[in-house]
C-alpha cells in the first residue's frame, strides 16, 4: 500500500516535471515529436532508476560512515556522469537495438536535473532502498508521461494556424505546459 502511494504520488500528484520543476530543459527541448519523446522518456526512466539506487548506496555506505556528507553534490554528479557513460557502453555491447533507440539521448541525461534531483530527494525523504527504487522508477515514469503528453500537444499546436504571432514558438509551448500542469493539479488529494 505504501509503495502504491509513493508510485501514484510521484507519477501524478507530485509529477517531477509539472509540479516539482525538475527536468524542464529536456521537457521543453526534446518535445517536438512524439517519437523522440518516447526515446528520451525511456532513457530517463532507465538512468534515473539506476542512478538513484547507486546514489543511495554511496550516501549510506560511504558518505555517512566517513562523515563527509558535504561531498554529496560532487560525488553524486560524478557518479551520474560515469553511470551514463557506462550505460552507453554496456548497451552498445549487449543490446544494439535498444542502444539505437536510446543512444542519442543518453549524453543529454547527465545534465537532466531530474536525475540528480530525484537522487537527492530520496535521501532527504529518508527512504530505504526499496522505497528509493520505487520512487525513482515512478519519477521516471512521471517524466516520460509528461513529456509524451506535451509532445502530442505540441504536434497539434504546430498544425494550428491561428496562434497570435507574438506567442509563436516558446511562449505558446509554455502556455500549453501551464495548462498541462493545471490538469495534473486535479490529481492532488487522490493519494488519501
Amino acid at each position, binding site marked *: 500500500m505504501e509503495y502504491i502511494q509513493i508510485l501514484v*504520488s510521484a507519477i501524478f500528484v507530485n509529477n517531477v516535471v509539472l509540479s516539482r520543476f525538475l527536468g524542464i530543459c529536456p521537457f521543453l527541448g526534446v518535445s517536438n515529436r512524439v517519437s523522440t519523446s518516447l526515446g528520451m522518456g525511456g532513457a530517463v526512466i532507465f538512468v534515473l532508476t539506476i542512478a538513484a539506487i547507486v546514489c543511495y548506496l554511496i550516501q549510506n555506505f560511504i558518505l555517512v560512515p566517513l562523515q*563527509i556528507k*558535504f*561531498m554529496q553534490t*560532487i560525488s553524486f554528479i560524478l557518479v551520474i556522469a560515469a553511470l551514463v557513460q557506462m550505460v552507453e557502453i554496456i548497451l552498445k555491447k549487449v543490446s544494439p537495438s535498444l542502444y539505437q533507440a536510446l543512444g542519442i539521448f543518453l549524453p543529454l541525461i547527465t545534465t537532466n536535473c531530474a536525475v540528480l534531483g530525484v537522487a537527492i530527494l530520496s535521501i532527504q525523504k529518508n527512504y530505504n532502498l526499496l522505497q528509493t527504487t520505487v520512487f525513482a522508477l515512478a519519477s521516471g515514469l512521471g517524466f516520460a508521461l509528461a513529456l509524451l503528453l506535451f509532445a502530442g500537444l505540441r504536434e497539434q499546436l504546430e498544425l494550428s494556424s491561428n496562434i497570435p504571432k507574438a506567442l509563436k514558438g516558446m511562449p505558446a509551448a509554455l502556455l500549453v505546459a501551464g495548462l498541462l500542469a493545471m490538469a495534473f493539479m486535479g490529481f*492532488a*488529494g487522490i*493519494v*488519501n
Partner: protein
Amino acid sequence: MAKVSSFKNMLLTLLATTFISSALLAGVHQLTKKAIEKVEVEKINAGIKKVLPEFANNPSDNISKKFVDGDTVAIYKATDSEGKLIGLAVQTFTNKGYGGRISLLVGFLADGTINNIDVIAHSETPGLGDKIDPRKHPFSIQFQGKNPDTFKLQVRKDGGDVDAISATTVSSRAFCDAVARAYKIFVEEMVKYNPNFASKIQAANDAVSGATKIN
C-alpha cells in the same frame, strides 16, 4: 591550446582537481560547521519559545525521542529557574494532509492544556490548506488554552469541537490528527513526571484513531 590527452596526464588532472576540491570543501565545511549547528539549535529553540511560556533552561539539551506511528519524534522539556516543569514541546506529524505530510510543534503546559501550536512544515495548497499556518489564518489559534481531555480534537462535522477552515476539511482533519497524536505522545511522556496521567493514556490513544476516522 588544450593539452593532448594521454592516460597519465588525464589521470593526474582528475586526481589533482578532485583532491584540491575535496581539500577546499573540507576547509569550508570546518568553517561553517559551527554556524550550521547553531542555526539548527536556534531553529528548535525559537520554535519552542513560540509554543511555550517563558522558561529558564535550554530545552534542546533535554530531548527525549520517541518512535510513534512509523516515525521518530522529539519531545523537549522546558523548566523554570528552580527546575520545576513548565511544559513539554512535542514534535508531531500527520500523513493525512491534502499535500501529504504536515509537521507541527505543539506546546503543552504541565496540566495538559495546549499553550500554542507552530507549523513547522507542510505542503498544503496555497490559499486553501495553507491556512493551517497561524500566519495566514486564525484556525490554529482556537486550540490555545484548550485541554484535549475536554476539548474533542475533531472537526465539528465529525462530532468534535474544532471549527474547520471552510472548504478545507481534509487539511483541518489532518491538523486535528497531528494534534491528537501530539497529545498522545505528551500523555505517555508525562507519566514520568506525574503518575496521574497514566489513567489518560487509553483515551488519548483512542482520540488519535478517532480524529480522522470518517474520511
